[in-house]
């Protein structure tokens, strides 16, 4: 494990994979798996456009946009956390990681509220093909987000304790969080905007 305490020079930064290179296997494999889910959704959507549109009309685009901005902001925050940690500004880095976790929780709360709204309105996992995909994709994403909260917890634990500080682990965890973020960006576009 390498511990980078001092800010690296421009030259050293130029050729470095952030975090464990191994993490990129997860990023790439998960993106492919999700792409296959998206492909299945689009394949059936293209065949039953009217039915999908009718159910899709019950989604609130504004809520989706707020969700997306919340998650993008959390991603921004964790990216700053990585930079602060790299520069040795640990209190700031811990604060950024906590902001990330808080925004993640806010996203989750918004999602739960949204699910509850749909379910009370009678739109459930089994009520129609669009809502099946909607619940499937949002829930599986939420599972990733929950794992992400554990991961951000690891970042906080690492940064708060001087003996544990390990830049590579922080960067690896940040990479995971960004993956959760960009998967949501795709899910948002496909569920809320696609026509």
């Amino acid at each position: 494990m390498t511990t980078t305490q001092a800010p690296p020079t421009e030259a050293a930064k130029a050729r470095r994979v952030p975090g464990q290179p191994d993490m990129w296997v997860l990023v790439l494999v998960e993106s492919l798996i999700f792409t296959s889910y998206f492909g299945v959704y689009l394949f059936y959507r293209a065949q039953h456009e009217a039915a999908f549109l009718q159910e899709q009309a019950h989604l609130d685009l504004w809520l989706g946009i707020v969700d997306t901005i919340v998650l993008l902001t959390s991603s921004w925050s964790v990216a700053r956390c990585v930079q602060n940690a790299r520069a040795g500004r640990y209190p700031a880095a811990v604060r950024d990681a906590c902001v990330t976790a808080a925004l993640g929780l806010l996203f989750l709360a918004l999602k739960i509220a949204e699910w509850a709204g749909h379910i009370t309105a009678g739109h459930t996992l089994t009520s129609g093909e669009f809502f099946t995909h909607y619940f499937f994709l949002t829930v599986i994403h939420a599972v990733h987000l929950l794992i992400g909260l554990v991961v951000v917890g690891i970042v906080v634990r690492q940064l708060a304790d001087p003996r544990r500080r390990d830049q590579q682990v922080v960067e690896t965890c940040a990479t995971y969080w960004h993956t959760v973020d960009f998967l949501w960006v795709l899910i948002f576009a496909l569920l809320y905007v696609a026509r």
Partner: protein
Amino acid sequence: MRPFARGENPKRELWLMWFAVLAFYQLYTVVFFVLTRTQPPGSPSYTAAEVPGWFASHHDGLLVGLALIFVLGGLSATSIALITYTIRRMSVSRAFAYSYLILYSVSAVPGFLFICVALTAGAMRPERDPRLQQWLYDLGFLSFSGTMGVFLVGSLVWMAAILLDRNRVFPKWFGYLNLCNAVTEVVVAPAWIFDRGVFAWNGLIAWWINVVVFGIYTGVFINLLRNVIIREDFGTGPLPDLPPRRARRHTAAAEVA
């Protein structure tokens, strides 16, 4: 451990296990994909009237194939044992190793013994009431596909062990691949809810995508287990690197000589 008689390969037990693992997965593939044709699974949307037809067209294959599993299914213990051993070799608590051992041993009964019993019972009495045949059909496929928790938690246990390990027993990326496999177990859950479409037990998402991920995962870990056996030095510290191919062949020749 006891001192060893000279001239014997200290890794013979590990190699024995590895070849048994290889044999078991071949057998599994042949039985479920070729002989019984239960993979890809039969359709969950069959009505009670259609199920007896499925049993009739699969009759001989089911009985012979499942009988092979009844006889040789216990070989599954070898992959569990070998993986448990590799976790024990890591710099983590043995609790991880023993958790893995018990999780997967327990999963054997609902994971593949139930489908064998249910489909054998169905194939044995084709004249049974079609509604009961459908009941057996559901029991078979849902117990087989729908045993999720042990594989979910099992993959997570393995993942945690690999990521915490400092003995480099498995590459870290395989730890992350375990997470991908664990998440696909979550995706099987809708198979308990839908009897048609992409989320049903034979659906694109709940079956095809999962089987591809699981197939890759299995292929990868069988290969990695082989590398671990080659690298094993029976110490307690980090495992050495995989020797280059040429050197490996050389030592193998020397061992034979």
